[in-house]
């Protein structure tokens, strides 16, 4: 079989707000193959494919279709080159019908709207039948299930004439049977001569359905290989990398049990938590690893006291079920929380550094009663904390917190949360978007908290971070802790638990 390159990306660089998402990425997909693009969250898979689909413009690098150099000015251009992408977050207009949504992507043609829509409705039914599913073209999209919406997306790109089909995490939202059907459909599609790019982080899908696989890590394309010739272990090793567990320092021997999460689950149908069990001791850092979207966010919300419906129990020693605790009680219990969204949930961007620092203890009465605010004390405390926690870029204590860079904003959050010698610390993705130095500073603070006897829970999608920090590691998968490891843990084993499917 003569294979010609369908889609070729080379030397792609792309950054967002100073964050380098892609560094010299190379990717080639051929006609007639299912080509998997494998990598962890944030490895740059979606960014690379958004460039291929014309949504993002690369800073450097070239794009070739059929071995011809092309320059895409937008998604319409991409569809002219027969490139179609099904996004992870569907790009559908909810109140419109299936047919209307598909019509949107087609170029304007003469002929009345009505007759075109009717013709299209027939085409949709025919194409759906050909692919082996049923879809009512006149139904509004908002009434469809997720799997059906995905079918609309696929029909949309196919009816627009796409022959290079990019699917971004297509199975993430599907049940196993649905996923299987979808993947065998696209396999058939490739066998008929099209090129299919399958963006995924699931090893099993790669092994079963892909003809070739390109592995990405940290914005770089690592290697392209035939999945039949490599073991799952090898794929895991390539995706999670092999960096040394530098920086781990053991703490004091773990103290008494402090926090116990028992069978924490989302009420049926409302979320991903499916019975989380874990115990956390004083003087211990417990790290939760896992691929993003397996319930970490919901677990973090529940632990931090953010609105999150749950069943089960979060039991804090000498208090009881933490789920019923008010924000005031949580402060009183000296629970420190560092949410992932530091500008949205941890800081009030338009308030000053002083106010953001002091707000943690205003209610406690440290800065005066309800009719009087002790500005001087607030300022001196904040100044001391800024000094102690090395918050840089503070030109004035009165400047807006939103002006702080990511790392310094995070330090300010830590300064506030740690100002009362916490006994329980809950942290979600503490170093996301931070540079190496700031990350190290944040990690040092977390270790110091542990060493002074706090129980620390770190939820992070960055496996390196978990390995560097944690004394004990739990792997979260499909809303549960599926495996636990003591330090030193085997990276490959953790990686496997992260992606395994039962």
């Amino acid at each position, binding site marked *: 079989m003569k294979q010609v390159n369908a889609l070729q990306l080379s030397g792609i660089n792309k950054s967002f707000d100073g964050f380098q998402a892609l560094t010299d990425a190379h990717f080639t997909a051929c006609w007639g193959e299912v080509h998997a693009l494998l990598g962890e969250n944030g490895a740059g898979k979606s960014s690379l494919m958004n460039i291929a*689909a014309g*949504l993002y413009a690369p800073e450097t690098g070239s794009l070739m279709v059929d071995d011809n150099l092309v320059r895409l000015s937008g*998604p*319409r251009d991409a569809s002219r080159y027969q490139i179609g992408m099904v996004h992870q977050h569907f*790009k559908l*207009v909810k109140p419109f019908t299936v047919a209307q949504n598909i019509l949107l992507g087609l170029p*304007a043609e003469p002929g009345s*709207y*009505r007759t075109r829509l009717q013709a299209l409705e027939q085409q949709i039914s025919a194409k759906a039948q050909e692919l082996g599913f049923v879809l009512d073209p006149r139904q509004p999209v908002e009434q469809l299930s997720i799997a059906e919406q995905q079918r609309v997306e696929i029909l*949309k790109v196919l009816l627009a004439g796409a022959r290079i089909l990019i699917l971004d995490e297509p199975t993430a939202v599907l049940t196993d049977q649905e996923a299987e059907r979808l993947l065998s459909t696209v396999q058939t599609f490739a066998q008929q001569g099209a090129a299919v790019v399958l963006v995924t982080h699931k090893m099993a899908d790669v092994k079963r359905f892909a003809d070739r696989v390109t592995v990405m890590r940290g914005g770089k394309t690592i290697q392209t290989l035939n999945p039949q010739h490599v073991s799952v272990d090898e794929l895991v090793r390539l995706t999670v990398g092999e960096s040394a567990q530098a920086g781990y320092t053991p703490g004091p021997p773990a103290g008494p049990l402090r926090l116990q999460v028992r069978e924490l689950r989302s009420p049926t149908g409302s979320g991903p938590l499916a019975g989380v069990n874990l115990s956390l001791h004083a003087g211990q850092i417990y790290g939760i690893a896992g691929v993003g979207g397996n319930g970490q966010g919901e677990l973090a919300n529940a632990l931090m006291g953010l609105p999150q419906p749950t069943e089960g129990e979060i039991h804090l020693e000498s208090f009881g079920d933490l789920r019923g605790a008010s924000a005031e009680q949580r402060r009183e219990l000296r629970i420190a929380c560092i949410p992932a969204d530091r500008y949205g949930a941890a800081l009030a961007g338009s308030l000053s550094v002083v106010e953001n620092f002091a707000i943690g203890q205003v209610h406690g009465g440290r800065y005066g009663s309800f009719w009087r605010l002790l500005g001087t004390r607030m300022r001196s405390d904040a100044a001391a904390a800024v000094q102690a926690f090395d918050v840089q870029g503070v030109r004035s204590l009165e400047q807006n917190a939103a002006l702080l860079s990511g790392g310094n904003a995070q330090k300010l959050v830590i300064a506030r949360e740690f100002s009362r010698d916490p006994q329980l610390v809950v942290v979600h993705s503490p170093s996301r978007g931070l540079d190496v130095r700031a990350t190290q500073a944040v990690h040092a603070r977390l270790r110091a908290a542990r060493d002074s006897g706090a129980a620390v829970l770190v939820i992070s999608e960055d496996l390196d971070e978990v390995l560097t920090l944690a004394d004990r590691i739990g792997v979260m998968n499909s809303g549960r802790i599926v495996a636990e490891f003591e330090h030193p843990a085997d990276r490959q084993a953790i990686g496997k638990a992260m992606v395994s499917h039962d």
Partner: protein
Amino acid sequence: MDLLTHWLGNAPDFAVPFALAALGLILTERAGVLALGAEGLMLVGALAGIGMQLGVGVAGVSLLVAMVAAGAVSLLFALMVLVLRINQVIAGLALVFFCQGLTGLAGTVFGWTNRPVSGLNTVELWPLSELPLVGKIFVQNPLVYLTVLIFIAVVWFLYRTQTGLRLRAVGENPQAADAAGIPVLTYRLAAIVAGAALIGLAGAYIAVLSTKMWIADMTGGRGWIAVSLVIFARWSPWRALAGALLFGAIEALIPQLAATGVRLPQYFVLMTPYAVTLLVMIWVALGSRESASQPGALGEPFIREQRR
């Protein structure tokens, strides 16, 4: 009986500015741009119309020039919200104050204030105009009839053409529209200018055909009533037309009541349309389950390379 006949006959004349302005707003807001500047654009249309009517004196030309003038001024709003991505509420309010100042100044400088112009003669729709009681409804100036045709055309465009489908997609989910290759900002620009032209026509109607003269701030808050009318109509043109008739009828009632010698405090009477607006808004808010019909991306600026 005479009162009723007159009232019904006058209602369409009062309803047309509301209807046209609301239609213009719907056109713009269906593309996802929150347009609060109607009051200002109506004034621009009104002044431009009067200026042209005083100079050239052909009503058709005056109305067209009013539409072009309002469309041109709306480019400033488009620049603010589409290119600079200034908050659409702020930009809309700023536009109103700017237009109020600009038209007040220009009206004085050019000496157009309080100078009467000739409007348009009425046209009778025979034989409907011979009907008892309601006959007077069918004796109107041509623009009243034209308004109905404009409504049909806009509704046809929005719901029966592919371009209209795209415009609504831009207002519902610009990211989806963008991924489908629709130039979001171009569509929004076109919707802003086209909507402004209709709003300008509404203003010109008041000045050139109803009042037949220019007075500073003569629209008297009708642009704001149109804004609330759109919410009341849940962005549906036909419901907006019905609402416009309701408000037109209320406004038309005021001089009729005065003529019959009913003694009501003047300011109370003048307040009625605004009070009704408030009541309507409260009523709409109470039935808020229907708010789903608001364009999904109304008021949201569109930026393509947005991560997450």
